[in-house]
């Protein structure tokens, strides 16, 4: 690890970031000097950052800067990509997420994920929600759990009369809320969302945003978005990533440029590159 990289004292940053209602007082993830490469090509380099409990943290930045790569480090989804390699440290409540005795399956149970394209299982609406809990042994009161999670995801009223129908018959926005409900059903601690609304119309998008507001009281949420207004609307803190050309000309990789309170990032950024991006002068 390079000695020049300033290490973030996540505990201290956490205290600084806490809101009056107590959200954000605790650090959920502390990332230090994280580098991810695919088959030897570095995609994201030297990221240091801490994510606070019950905060909504947004990742923004141009296409290809490694936002998806980064968010997939938190639930070890990159383990599934042949040739992917993660170096550096990710602490989850102080425990090494990539420790030798950590089972990625258990990690993914606690850290749920919602994908860019709604991806319900080709099963009934009910079974989409019940699938996770059943397999993970949360077998009591499945009916009640399905109802509770669908209400939580603001979908219950729309689907309560058609629970046995195939989930693929729902609209895109409904499918995405179903996917959020499916993630909530296994009682995660954190929810990762990789551009959850980018495939949706404006009305469905605003429903997802409302939902994020509701959920942040109980969950820690990390969201990747291309839409800066969306980041400004939903996020407590925002991290701006950018692409950096390597000095030796061997290619480009993503870096973390700036990470701060969302209002600060959008109104008074420290870095020139952030300012160019948020004011639309990028590229």
């Amino acid at each position, binding site marked *: 690890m390079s000695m020049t990289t300033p290490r973030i004292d996540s505990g201290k940053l956490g205290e600084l970031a806490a809101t009056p209602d107590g959200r954000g007082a605790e650090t959920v993830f502390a990332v230090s000097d994280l580098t991810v490469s695919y088959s030897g090509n570095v995609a994201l380099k030297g990221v240091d950052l801490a994510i606070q409990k019950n905060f909504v943290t947004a990742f923004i930045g141009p296409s290809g800067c490694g936002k998806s790569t980064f968010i997939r480090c938190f639930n070890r989804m990159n383990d599934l990509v042949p040739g992917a390699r993660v170096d550096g440290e990710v602490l989850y409540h102080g425990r090494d997420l990539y420790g030798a005795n950590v089972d990625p399956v258990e990690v993914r149970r606690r850290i749920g994920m919602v994908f860019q394209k709604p991806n319900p299982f080709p099963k009934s609406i009910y079974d989409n929600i019940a699938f996770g809990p059943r*397999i993970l042994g949360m077998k009591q009161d499945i009916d009640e759990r399905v109802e509770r999670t669908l209400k939580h995801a603001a979908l219950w009223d729309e689907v309560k009369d058609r629970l046995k129908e195939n989930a693929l018959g729902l609209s895109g926005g409904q499918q995405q809320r179903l996917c959020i409900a499916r993630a909530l059903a296994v009682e995660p601690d954190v929810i990762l969302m990789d551009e959850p609304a980018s495939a949706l119309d404006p009305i469905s998008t605003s429903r997802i945003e409302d939902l994020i507001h509701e959920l942040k009281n109980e969950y820690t949420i990390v969201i990747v978005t291309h839409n800066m207004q969306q980041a400004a609307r939903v996020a407590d803190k925002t991290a701006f990533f950018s692409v950096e050309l390597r000095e030796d000309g061997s290619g480009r990789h993503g870096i973390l440029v700036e990470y701060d309170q969302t209002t600060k990032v959008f109104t008074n950024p420290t870095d020139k590159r952030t300012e160019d991006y948020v004011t639309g002068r990028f590229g």
Partner: protein
Amino acid sequence: MSSAQITDPYDITASSNNLGRRRRIQKLVSFVAILSAALAVALLALVLGTVLFKGLSQIDTAFFTKPAALFGEKGGIADALIGSALIVGMAMIMAVPIAILVAIYIAEYAGPKAASFFRVMLDVLNGVPAIIVGIFIYGLLVVGKGQSAIYGAMALAILMIPMVARATQEILELVPRHLREASLALGVPRWRTVYSIVLPTAIGGILTGVVIAVARVAGETAPLLFTSSITQNQISFDIHNALPTLPVRIFTLSESPSPDDQAAAWAAALVLIAFVLVMNIVAKVIANRKRRSLEGG
């Protein structure tokens, strides 16, 4: 052509450059293609027509309920149908689980190099002539222990495994990656994801592959000549002995000098062809129905 001539550059009715030649080639190619397609259909019609013409008149209820003829009297194929059903059924029980496990390994667990190695191996196995598989089982088991329906089923299973495994593996690879990710992201283990999400999604395609493989091996004759051909031609369910089968029956009947036997051979051939056709239609129906349910019908 004179360069002084004023031409309308947007005149799309005028032919430019080699348009005429391109049109002629286009016509020629489509003519040859249509002709070839028609030839293939005509060949199928000819085969079906001949078998239908020569076999249909022989078929009555007794043909299905009586075993082979002893002397002179008109016989049926009941014994061969039972033997074929038992042998193909056993082959299916032996081959399908192995084939699906092989396919799961290739599609879900193997790295890219191992996967392509096993794919090539299956293709090679698929290309081994049936008679070689027959000789293999003959040399390994039949010599010494004698013929048996079980050995016949083993030979057919060896033929089925690469067919079913390859079909299954291709279907598994068509299951969208985002479905696997959705399940894994819930903290569902890999094997459970395969069992509960990937296999049910692919089940239509897998069944189609099995049905087509069954139709293929049901008509295989060579391996059964080595393993289950010296038979009593009586109705029997004893799988430890050789059992009569439809393809072997067609073979022996057609070798016979008696015109009655030859007529019976055509009729038996008609039954076999009808079975293969029905199986293929069943496969199509399964595939279509499953595709519709995947698309959210």
